[in-house]
């Protein structure tokens, strides 16, 4: 309906006639120009692989407001005190210098899908042949009464995405006296990275066990049960953190009080915390929502899984956590990296007049730390099923760790460094 008007209306100010005049980018790339918005796992991978899969013929622009990439995977280890945020931070220089990607530190203010242009906060207006959106997620703070105010004052943190809030949450834990209560609330699925809250709880418990053993970690989950690697997590909790970490299901958060650090639930009694980490419900990143592309439950973006092209906007591809995921496909950094490669291959084919790969495959391995030295994983391989127009897990493949191990912790660390290089180096 008014989708196009909606998108067009977001194109603030800037004269479309100024395209090309206000930028140092090549004005008329031969093979085509692809603009990638968002430099996380999905966007950075898309930028690099668009260059690789087009044999460097496509002009690729990456728009990202942050100076550097910061990984959310492994950031629970910053909260647990084993890593510094700087160890999860990677420059975009590899994309610039090794792959010839134009990286602009800027923010998109409008998209006009019918004219294939975007406007930026700097005033630039850029034309694209293809647009790739990788906006990640946005916490829906307004869905929990009291949360937006509590979050604004820094009293109640969520730390869904790695950054300053990750460090702030770490500081709160450090400042907490021994004997304090850490409360972590988990929203109903789907949300970014299914095992993330359980990994966080494990690593906070590991920190408390070592430095504040009289403390308590309360994991209050809106879901019916632990939604990822439940048996492995529960075994680790009972063996490593007995009496310290307590898990409770069916805890649907209905409100918070930032002054007293109290959490209210739909049926259970109020819970008071010394550190209250509310992992709020999330939806597709702001750009996807504001441009009218997040129409599934008003939260997620629907895509054609063969190309990751939006079902609403021609030549607009969307990858990563913001999409309405295929069945049994988690929202993870690894999946975003995999989405981006399928999208990049499809775009390179489309812009050079070739047919799109009819049978793409995706692989995923999610590692989670359960202590400072041990990790577990969940893995799957997905094949595109043409009749269903979606990806499905390949039967017989995939699974979880037989047991937690130090070997998997080493693999988790190696995985992170290798995938960062796969995206950015």
């Amino acid at each position, binding site marked *: 309906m008014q989708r196009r008007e909606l998108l067009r209306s977001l194109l603030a100010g800037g004269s479309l006639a100024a395209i090309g005049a206000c930028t140092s980018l090549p004005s008329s790339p031969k093979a085509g120009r692809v603009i990638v918005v968002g430099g996380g796992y999905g966007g950075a991978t898309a930028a*690099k692989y668009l260059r*690789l*899969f087009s044999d460097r013929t496509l002009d690729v622009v990456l728009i990202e407001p942050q100076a550097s990439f910061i990984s959310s995977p492994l950031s629970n280890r910053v909260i647990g005190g084993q890593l510094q945020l700087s160890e999860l931070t990677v420059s975009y220089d590899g994309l610039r210098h090794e792959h010839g990607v134009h990286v602009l530190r800027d923010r998109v203010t409008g998209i006009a899908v019918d004219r294939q242009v975007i406007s930026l906060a700097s005033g630039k207006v850029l034309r694209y042949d293809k647009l790739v959106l990788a906006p990640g997620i946005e916490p829906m703070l307004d869905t929990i009464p009291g949360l937006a105010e509590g979050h604004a004052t820094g009293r109640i943190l969520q730390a869904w995405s790695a950054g300053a809030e990750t460090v702030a949450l770490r500081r709160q834990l450090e400042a907490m006296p021994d004997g304090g209560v850490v409360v972590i609330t988990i929203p109903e*699925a*789907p*949300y970014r990275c*299914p095992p993330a809250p359980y990994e966080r709880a494990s690593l906070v418990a590991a920190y408390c066990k070592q430095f504040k053993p009289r403390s308590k970690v309360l994991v209050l989950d809106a*879901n019916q049960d632990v*939604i*990822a*690697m*439940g048996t*492995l997590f529960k075994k680790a909790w009972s063996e490593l953190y007995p009496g310290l970490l307590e898990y409770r299901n069916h805890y649907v958060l209905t409100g918070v009080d930032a002054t007293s650090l109290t959490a209210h639930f739909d049926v259970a009694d109020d819970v008071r915390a010394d550190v209250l980490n509310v992992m709020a419900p999330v939806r597709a990143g702001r750009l996807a929502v504001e441009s009218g592309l997040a129409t599934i*439950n008003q939260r997620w973006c629907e895509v054609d899984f063969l190309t990751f092209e939006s079902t609403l906007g021609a030549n607009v591809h969307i990858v990563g956590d913001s999409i309405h*995921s295929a*069945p*049994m496909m*988690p929202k993870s950094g690894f999946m975003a990296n*995999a989405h981006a*490669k399928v999208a990049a*291959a499809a775009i390179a084919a489309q812009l050079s007049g070739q047919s799109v*790969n*009819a*049978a793409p*495959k*995706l*692989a995923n*391995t*999610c590692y989670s730390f359960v202590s400072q030295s041990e990790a577990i*994983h*969940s*893995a*799957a*391989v997905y*094949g*595109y*099923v043409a*009749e269903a127009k979606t990806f*499905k*897990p*390949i*039967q*017989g*493949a*995939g*699974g*979880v*760790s*037989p047991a937690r*191990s130090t070997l998997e912790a*080493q*693999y988790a*660390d*190696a*995985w992170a*460094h*290798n*995938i960062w*290089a*796969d995206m950015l180096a």
Partner: protein
Amino acid sequence: MIRGTWLVVGALLCAGFVRIACGEAEPQADATLSATAVRALAASCAGCHGTDGHVVKGSKVPGIAGLSQDYFAMQMSAYRAGKIPSTVMQQIAKGYDERETVALGAYFAAQR
């Protein structure tokens, strides 16, 4: 609504319960994989093993660039059959058939 149901079911099952999931048979592809299809397939290995099989220095996950085609295909076959102990590779290898692993073997053998 069907979509909403998948949303919830998908999230509940996404990790740890894949084995009981209702995956279909692998999609049929042509007898030979095109060069671009193999390149795309190889990119699915890069999330752990690095771009074109090149890992970072000191990586505990092994690099696979430059392995001989036969060795690569043999290892993948052995992982699939559960003959090599592993944490994750047995599970991943089962997602790729013989024809794909032979093609991947040729691809990674050509990477230097």
